[in-house]
């Protein structure tokens, strides 16, 4: 009953909305378990099937899957929240970010798809191993990918929590009322991911993406008329952003980036775009496509989601004009509740329920793919590489399935047990860290000029610099460390995204050390690929197709 009492402060438990949400959740859970039968493989006992859906997804499945994977529930909650509280630089950069992203995918990911198809690579680290022959560099890439993904999974829970909190549950004093809904949601998710592998999020992504499109389109058509039109919305946003913040004494945020913020805006967009496809979960969704051209075609049609994200970002400003008060069940303001609260204030309960379902299901898809990707990385690049080199595909699949459960349990503990800001800090760090694997993955798609040990040293330089500078960013209001992802670029005097600055230092170190190692004629390692591999398509033979149980060995050429 304590839940009910507390909930009354924010308008009570929204029974209708909650019912709609639960119905959708159940439907999706059934679909998730059924997915194991979808395009039923002969056997689910390999990473090819469990972890990559048999590399069989065509253009449309891939479109929904990648859309569901990249545009996460956390994005849907955090981007409008940033627009609402800090304005365009922190929020709207998501639009150029997800535009710049697609030319990058078009060029790099088709090559990665081809070489992975030929050699049976499942993770980015698999590719680095095959190309560099360096176990140390591979381990660095694998561990970075794993660590960067973990907080990302945890943050998906924040999306679900935001929805439940506005619907009036999840804020009670006792543990059962507070955490049970999230706990149940994640256990169900873990179970169908365990049985169906990547096929589960692929099916659920259809539901998620269609719901999101409907909700956002209805919202941007209907809501502005309720709050005096777009002109009024932009005026309200401008007024709020230009007003002075009582704590810091500076402007609240940016309505349109000022001259001193151009670098920050551009580097945030570019750096985030370069980093996104270094995450294992992006690579997993890419490699599950059935042909090289599936990826390229998708690069042309995925921007539809960027359009949607832009509209969603603007809902943060609609909420300013609407006077939305995002107050949590604990009575404190929480900007992350702004979009769910906006929906609850203006829509009939049943449609608010649909919107809540869109966000909550939106959390399940990326959480599933991320946990699969993290598990594949652990299995291939840590378990098989270091613990049991002769693991069969069946054992690999088993380890990966079990790891996916552990990963989700960890995410749950992370969010429920620790302060949410920990997850946020690690997510911020994760973006900086994953960027440091860019040289090892992308440069190797084109050239072996860089020495493998130089790439490892460059990675170390980027990691240390990125971590230290992120720590040194202090939030002006709370005085806490990890206060943001933007810091002064040394020698330039402009503010820029730390990940990109660290990447440049990483690159310089890699070049310098390559010249040093080359001068000493250090061992270059063995490359198992041939240049033609990077242009292979479906139907071209796989290198190890005759040997499915042994270690990855290149055919003699």
């Amino acid at each position, binding site marked *: 009953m304590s839940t009910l009492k507390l909930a009354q402060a924010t308008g009570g438990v929204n029974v209708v909305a909650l019912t709609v949400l639960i119905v959708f959740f159940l439907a999706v859970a059934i679909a998730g378990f059924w997915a194991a039968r979808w395009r039923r493989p002969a056997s689910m006992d390999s990473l090819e099937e469990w972890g990559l859906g048999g590399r069989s997804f065509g253009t449309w499945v891939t479109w929904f899957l990648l859309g569901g994977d990249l545009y996460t529930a956390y994005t849907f909650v955090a981007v409008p929240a940033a627009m609402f509280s800090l304005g365009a630089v922190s929020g709207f950069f998501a639009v150029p970010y997800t*535009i710049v992203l697609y030319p990058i995918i*078009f060029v790099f990911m088709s090559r990665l798809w081809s070489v992975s198809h030929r050699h049976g690579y499942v993770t980015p680290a698999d590719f680095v191993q095959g190309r560099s022959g360096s176990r140390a560099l591979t381990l660095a890439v694998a561990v970075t990918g794993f660590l960067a993904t973990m907080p990302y999974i945890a943050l998906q829970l924040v999306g679900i929590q935001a929805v439940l909190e506005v619907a009036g549950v999840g804020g009670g004093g006792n543990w059962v009322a507070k955490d049970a809904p999230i706990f149940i949601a994640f256990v169900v998710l873990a179970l169908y991911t365990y049985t169906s592998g990547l096929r589960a999020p692929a099916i659920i992504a259809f539901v998620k993406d269609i719901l999101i499109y409907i909700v956002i389109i209805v919202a941007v058509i209907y809501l502005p008329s309720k709050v005096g039109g777009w002109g009024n919305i932009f005026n309200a946003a401008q007024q709020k952003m230009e007003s002075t913040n009582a704590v810091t004494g500076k402007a609240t945020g940016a309505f349109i*980036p000022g001259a001193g913020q151009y670098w920050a805006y551009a580097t945030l967009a570019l750096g985030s775009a370069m980093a996104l496809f270094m995450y294992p979960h992006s690579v997993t969704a890419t490699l599950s496509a059935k042909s090289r*051209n599936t990826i390229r075609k998708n*690069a*042309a049609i995925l921007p539809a989601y960027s359009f949607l994200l832009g509209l969603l970002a603007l809902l943060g400003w609609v909420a300013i004009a609407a006077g939305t008060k995002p107050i949590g069940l604990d009575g404190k303001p929480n900007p992350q509740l702004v979009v769910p609260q906006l929906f609850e204030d203006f829509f009939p309960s049943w449609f608010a329920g649909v919107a809540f379902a869109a966000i909550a299901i939106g959390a399940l898809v990326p959480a599933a793919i991320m946990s699969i990707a993290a598990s594949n990385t652990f299995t291939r690049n840590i378990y098989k590489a270091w613990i049991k080199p002769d693991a069969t595909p069946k054992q690999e699949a088993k380890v990966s399935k079990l790891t996916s459960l552990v990963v989700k349990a960890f995410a749950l503990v992370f969010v429920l047990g620790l302060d949410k800001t920990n997850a946020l800090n690690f997510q911020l760090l994760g973006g900086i860290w994953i960027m440091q694997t860019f040289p090892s993955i992308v440069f190797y798609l084109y050239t072996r000029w860089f020495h493998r040990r130089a790439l490892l040293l460059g990675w170390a330089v980027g990691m240390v610099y990125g971590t230290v500078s992120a720590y040194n960013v202090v939030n002006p209001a709370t005085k806490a460390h990890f206060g943001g992802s933007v810091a002064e670029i040394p020698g330039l005097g402009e503010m820029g995204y730390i990940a990109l600055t660290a990447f440049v230092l990483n690159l310089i170190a890699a070049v310098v050390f390559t010249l040093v190692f080359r001068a000493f004629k250090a061992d270059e390692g063995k490359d198992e690929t041939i*240049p*033609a591999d990077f242009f292979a398509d479906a139907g071209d033979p796989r290198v190890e197709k005759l040997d499915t149980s042994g270690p990855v060995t290149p055919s003699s*050429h």
Partner: protein
Amino acid sequence: MSTPPQHRDAPPANKGLLAIAVVCLSLPIIALMLVGTYAKDGPRFLDFPFFIWYQFLWVALCSILTYTAYRLVLKARPHRPMNPEGTEFLTDAADEPNGAANDGEAGR
């Protein structure tokens, strides 16, 4: 000019078409990195500040340009199937003007 290494390398491509594709793919990145060119309020379009609608416009342009690049790349470098051993790609005499671009066929 020996046969095996050549067919292990990248399949032949029309460099001119590839260059145009690269331009198509670079335009959105360059345009959006120049924040100073669009960080302004006016002219407004249907009450939307220039800063907002201009970036929405680039979403559409990026999609069109990427699709153009896709068509160009397909034409510039048609796929060459590999031999069953997967050690090199096969020469397709049909779409190659008399095998001029790769003359490694003679001895095979």
